[in-house]
């Protein structure tokens, strides 16, 4: 008994921190999503009303929300797999034991992850510049006419995706490298004795053995990519024609630009529901695949 109390006593600071800084704000935000808390309410609390599900209903009727959802899913569906493929590819490239300068390449590929996004954004804005950018210059050598990458509603999201993949693949690459190192070398030896080629080895050994790693990486990537915010915030501010407006960017605009806190909180919980559903579906699929 004495022991249990002591345990609780030692846990108390951590629990208090979690309670004050996590549980309480989340609960408050959840309550807020049922109110019309706005700038008037900040001045005078009597001007906040409980409005039930009205924020959520208004959300469903807001074309901007659907636009933001569409953009976010576009980013997720194209950018997510692309990012994982690039991470896996680079991890495989850096895998061979005899590779020279391995440490250098790992550092180089990981560098974008730890670079400040704002600095990265400035460089990428130069890259994407329609008239003086290096990307359009390279394309012009191949005879492709210049594209206004960030100014054209059709190309802005692909441009953001490429930049986000470049910025983030290094993190997953490190996880994949760790996963690859956990695959016993004997499996490959046995396979090559049996006459399996490199591709067969990859398909029948590497991929299945990496399944838990891939599940982890894909869930983490999905959660991260659902919360797309910083890239469009610094590159395009959601434009042109809202083609890069993401759910979190919309939430930010509603909350901190227009001060519609209730509406913004409702958006946050809708996003939470999407991420939860996505994670559950992904782990179900993986489990069935493993079974």
């Amino acid at each position, binding site marked *: 008994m004495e022991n249990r109390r*002591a345990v609780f*006593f030692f846990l108390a600071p951590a629990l208090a921190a979690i309670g004050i800084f996590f549980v309480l704000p989340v609960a408050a935000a959840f309550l807020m999503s049922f109110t*019309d808390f*706005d*700038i*008037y309410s*900040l*001045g*005078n609390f009597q*001007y906040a*009303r409980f409005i039930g599900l009205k924020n959520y209903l*208004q959300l469903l009727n807001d074309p901007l929300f659907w636009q933001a959802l569409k953009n976010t899913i576009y980013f997720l569906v194209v950018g997510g797999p692309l990012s994982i493929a690039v991470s896996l590819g680079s991890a495989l490239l850096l895998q061979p034991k005899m590779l020279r300068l391995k440490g250098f390449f790992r550092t180089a590929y990981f560098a974008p992850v730890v670079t400040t996004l704002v600095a990265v954004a400035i460089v990428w804005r130069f890259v994407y*510049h*329609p*008239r003086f950018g290096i990307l359009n210059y390279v394309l012009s050598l191949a005879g492709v006419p210049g594209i*206004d990458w960030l*100014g*054209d509603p059709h190309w802005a999201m692909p441009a953001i995706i490429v930049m986000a993949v470049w910025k983030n693949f290094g993190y997953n690459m490190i996880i994949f490298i760790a996963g690859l190192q956990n695959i016993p070398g004997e499996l490959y030896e046995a396979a090559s004795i049996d006459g399996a080629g490199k591709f067969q080895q990859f398909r029948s050994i590497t991929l299945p053995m990496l399944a838990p790693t891939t599940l982890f990486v894909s869930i983490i990537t999905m959660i991260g990519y659902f919360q797309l915010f910083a890239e469009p915030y610094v590159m395009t501010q959601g*434009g*042109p*024609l809202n083609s890069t407006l993401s759910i979190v960017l919309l939430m930010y605009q509603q909350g*901190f*630009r*227009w*001060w519609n806190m209730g509406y913004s909180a409702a958006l946050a919980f809708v996003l939470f529901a999407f991420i939860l559903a996505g994670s559950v579906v992904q782990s179900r699929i993986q489990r069935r695949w493993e079974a």
Partner: protein
Amino acid sequence: MTSAGRRIDVRWWLGITIAIFFIAYGCVSLPSCARGASASDVVFWAFGVEGEYVSKLIPEFERRNPGIHVRVQMIPWNAAHEKLLTAFAGGSLPDISQMGNTWIPEFNVLHAIEDLTPWMAQGAAIRDSFYFPGVWDTYRIDSVLFGIPWYVDTRVLFYRSDLLAQVGYPRPPRTWSELEDASARLVARSPGHYGIFFSTNNEWAPPVLFGLQKRSSLLKDHDTRGNFSGPEFADATREFYKFFRNGWAPVKTTQIVNVYQAFAEGYFAMYISGPWYIGEFTRRLPDSLQNAWMTAPLPGPDDSSSISFAGGSGLVMLRTSNHKPEVWKLMEFLSAPAQQIGFYRLTGNLPARLEAWHDSSLAHNTYAAAFFTQLNNAVALPKVPEWEQIAQEVRQHVELITMDQLTVDEGLKALDRKVDIVLEKRRWIAHGE
């Protein structure tokens, strides 16, 4: 670890640690403890370039007022609004702050800013007749004065005088029909180029200015509903749309990446913007073009004087301040003609005080003359906290109209529906009172 004494020891140390933590925390949150000896400072928030340059005027103020110390804190423009709101929520507002005049309604709703009428009555240093009436009005809500104009801006027409002269306009177009005619001639003379450029992809000002020309009130029913589908704004939008339908203004605005360059190339010959473009054009246009551009008051629907909106920044006194008399002294100082001129010379911001416009440095600036005329015909935008959000809706809906995604009538009806949703809270509050 079995001995009871030891365990008490641990709790004892833990308790002390927590106590120290809370004392330290309390100290940080108590202004008197954190600021220490500097508690008598007047804290002044100014934004961007203004913050940088106003510091140069402060030593003179401190010399004239021994015992008052002003601490200028520079806030970047794009963070200023959020910073003020979070400071309000956190109870750490400054004593005096610069404030964009469209933010006044919002901070009035928050009861964050002081009524300055009683302060004004104490002396004769500041009178409403010293200022442009339209500008002064932006700082008044329900006849209560919440700010003193510091510097002003409004929108005028910037044009290439050489190109317009070539198509028979040695003087700028004064009416909408002249604007149409000049644009049509410019396009006819050099196909692939345009008469005028409206950046509908990121600016709400042009369609709103067209509406103001037609004397649209923008909002109606005591600013609780949109009035954009009303006849005035609808007429103005039809006029605005004409420029896109006839190819006088580019529809695909994103093709223009650099306004200065496109203006220099003659890709378009006219552009509506504010006083900061005087500096930008002077700096960025090649020397050969420096005598080839000018400013003019906005063209209107007929010969009578055209309307623009009154922008700019003012100085506000925060209600939470403990240094209100000192703050008022600083406001009087910065509003004196000499300081207004000094600030204009430092920043290029147009002075709010009428008297300052007689100074030679401003009277000789030919680009500023159009602004003086226009400022005398400038009006306040709707004084509601939601204005910025409404303006974005105007921009988005008018952009859809110019791109032929919606007709003028459809677009403006949809706009009013959206604006009515935004203003729902105002209707509820007005109804309760």
